[in-house]
């Protein structure tokens, strides 16, 4: 009986939620949170694949994915801190609209 399929299946809602968050949310911090949700789902898939097929490489990849997506999130937080200090807001789209208004 194939059990890895259902295990992956259980992570797909989290993945889809995270992807929706990355696309639809405007706040940079919220985007970072959504990114990390996808990261958690990715690591879970890799860990489950490692456990099902007895492949230690899966856990190594999970570690790499966790670190890489975590770093990406930390960089987003750095940018959010900067925007917070300079503009007083972390809304990405508002920021663009304001710039456009200044240009006009």
């Amino acid at each position: 009986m194939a059990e890895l399929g259902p295990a992956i299946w259980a992570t797909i809602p989290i993945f889809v939620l995270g992807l929706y968050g990355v696309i639809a949310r405007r706040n940079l911090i919220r985007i970072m949170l959504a990114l990390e949700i996808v990261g958690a789902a990715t690591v879970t898939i890799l860990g489950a694949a490692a456990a099902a097929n007895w492949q230690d490489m899966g856990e190594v990849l999970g570690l790499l994915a966790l670190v890489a997506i975590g770093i990406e999130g930390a960089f987003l937080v750095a940018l959010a801190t900067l925007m917070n200090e300079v503009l007083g807001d972390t809304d990405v789209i508002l920021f663009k609209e304001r710039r456009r208004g200044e240009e006009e």
Partner: protein
Amino acid sequence: MIGALVLGLIAIAQALIFPASVSRVLSAILLSLALFFANGRVGSLVGDQFTQVGMLAVLIPAIVTLLFHKRQQRHFVLLVTMLTLAGYLVAASRNLATLAISLESLALAAAAVAFYPGEREKMRVTATYLIFSVMAAVLLFMGLAFYFAGANTVSLVQFTQTPTAIVGLTFLLAAIMLKLAIFPMHAWAVDVYSLASTSAAIYLSTSVKAAAMLALGILLAGPLKFAYQAGYWQVIIPALVLVVCSIAAGAAGMARSKGVKRLLAFSSIAHAGFLSLVLATPGAFSAGVIAYYALVYSLSNTVAFSAPLLLKGEGEATLEELSLLYKRPLTALAVAIALISLLGLPPTAGFNAKLLALVSLFKSSAIPQWFLLATAIAAVVFTAATGYGYIKAIGYLAKKPEETPQPWPELELLMIIYAFMILLLYFYPLIPKINVF
């Protein structure tokens, strides 16, 4: 390969120690030297012909950016050095884990480079770039996870044929297409390349893009080839449709743009589209074509992008202002050669590159012939439409201006050398071999 890595790490170390005026020259020298040590194999990094050509493509704009950026900042030199090393790693990596990690460090450093020289206005550029690189990272690692779950390996050749692996492969392809700014996700590239400082834009639109092209080449020589042979060629059809759309989007944008940087930003979208035609026939040949294309694109785009750097420093130059180059005929000739090469007319290497991409498209045996023919015709027609933008720019080069530009002999010499290389590559087209195992 170990020599190249050591030289790259020395370049990073010296950029940490020396002030920017010294370290940028040292960085350029060390990174160029690394090219000569790129052979052999270290773990999953392989130095073969593909790697060397790819490294050259990454290095060419890096030299311009390192040597000729206007406001000297130690951080910037450091970031560009690291970015170039990350590009080298992408070119050399021969398994998916190393490839993903290298692409990730490339995207992160590129987002920081877009912030150069650290102004309030550039924050928007960084935010745009970062959000799209986040999406690409999500797709990349998700693809890696699915691929691993299905195929149980990160090797490029031990492909296990399961639907899960194909899903992963599709995600990986989507991530790289997002990095290449293929339609419908192309708007970010225009924003970033036209609003970033010129020396940063040279780097982002050329080097980072060349690295993404090389990543596509590695996927083509590895898992995509095996998926194709196993009969999963349907995955490629929607990709080809998007590719043609992005050539059209590039052409439409170029006709409307008035600034040089904006024109070249749309041109880079059209180029990413044309290059991705090789997706139709995954294999070692198309990987070689990609490396050659990346090299030619890198040379041409660097020379063309150097024109606004020469004329306006870090700001945007309008097409009219290109006429200032009339007073510097050799430089104007170099820019004209670069633009003709970007359009793809002989006797420039851009012609060969486009021709080889079409040859690779028609080598496909699985995809129906009528579809290939329609794709090729649409691609060529839309590329001809991009000609309007290039010819407009070349027209301004031949117009006599009232003012005289500030001479910048070093940059102009480099541009002329690069333009000569474009002509040379027309007579010596090279299709580097790629080793996958």
